[in-house]
């Protein structure tokens, strides 16, 4: 049986799709058969972030409505061969995404994959509810910022009350905190919530901290999951998070501001 992992946050723009792409790619690089599903029906974006936008033929709604077989809609990644993507539909109405349809897709994918990553849309509407409904585990993507932390707390409540595991009393969804866009220099100056503060408020186990990094925009520009950029600190932090997820003991990195020498202070140059 596959593990179903939802990547969720409540708030938009915190890095759910970046995380889904990087985390899914990381698991696949470790040899796990991994599929990433875009649940943002109406506003497909995972395909762009993963660089497969030119290859989309069918989408999740085509599969639910019987117009295409699941394996026809899956896009196999050309860089990592154990990775596949199921795109969201763009034009159809959201009501086409049904619980029963999603159940069947997840059941069928469970036979061929080890991990099913559900990239949730922002908000707590239907798409977001269905993305988390079948989850066994959840990555809570949170920025060190007040509205993001509050929305994450909201989503944690939803996971505990309205997921399949909650409804069928199958035991708790396993929650992981992933703090993204963390800027240690601003934390040091007291301008940004400290990691410890976010952890204290949300009180769920920390999986990783992804530092703010210019390489994330570069990765999205080129459609390359940031974990495939070995020089990127964000990519390295995602890799650490994947390793931790798979049970390895990896110390947290990038939590302290980078000490710049005089030369770099004068001539610029930011975190890779």
């Amino acid at each position, binding site marked *: 049986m596959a593990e179903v992992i939802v990547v969720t946050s409540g708030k938009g723009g915190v890095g759910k799709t970046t995380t889904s792409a990087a985390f899914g790619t990381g698991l696949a690089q470790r040899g796990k058969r991994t599929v990433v599903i875009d649940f943002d029906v109406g506003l497909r974006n995972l395909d762009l972030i993963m660089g497969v*936008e*030119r*290859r989309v*033929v069918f989408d999740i709604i085509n599969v639910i409505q019987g117009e*295409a*077989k699941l394996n026809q809609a899956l896009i196999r990644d050309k860089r990592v061969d154990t990775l596949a993507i199921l795109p969201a539909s763009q*034009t159809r109405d959201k009501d086409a995404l049904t619980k029963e349809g999603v159940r069947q897709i997840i059941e069928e994918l469970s036979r061929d994959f080890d991990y099913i990553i559900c990239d949730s849309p922002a908000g707590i509407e239907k798409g977001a509810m269905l993305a988390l409904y079948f989850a066994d585990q959840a990555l809570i993507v949170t920025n060190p910022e007040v509205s993001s932390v509050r929305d994450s707390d909201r989503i944690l409540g939803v996971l505990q009350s309205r997921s399949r595991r909650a409804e069928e009393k199958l035991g708790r969804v396993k929650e992981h905190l992933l703090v993204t866009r963390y800027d240690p220099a601003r934390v040091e100056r007291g301008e940004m919530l400290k990691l410890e503060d976010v952890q204290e408020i949300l009180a769920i186990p920390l999986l990783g901290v992804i530092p703010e990094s210019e390489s994330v925009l570069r990765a*999205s520009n080129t459609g390359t999951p940031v974990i495939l950029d070995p020089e990127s600190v964000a990519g390295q932090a995602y890799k650490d998070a994947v390793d931790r997820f798979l049970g390895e003991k990896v110390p947290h990195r990038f939590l302290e501001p980078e000490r710049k020498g005089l030369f770099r202070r004068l*001539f*610029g140059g930011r975190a890779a």
Partner: protein
Amino acid sequence: MRWLDLFRARKPAQASAASAKERLQIVLAHERIGRTREDFLPKLQQELVAVVARYVAIDPNKVAVNLERGGDMSTLEIEIELPGPQAQRLEAAASR
């Protein structure tokens, strides 16, 4: 010469923004067409499979559709796996 690099503020631009623009132009051009016209791909596939099925017994699961959208040209690749003579004979025997 390596030391000359010192005079450059940064490495030469990696031009990822240009790549972003090109990717967006291609994908949006296709999506804008799609907005005014219904997506014909599912129907095209169903009809093609129906035509082939009139002649050969095919497994709908063994129809692969691949698309690569480009700026000037796109390629649509439909791969239909036809059962070999052995499988067909077995099927004929089973349906008798």
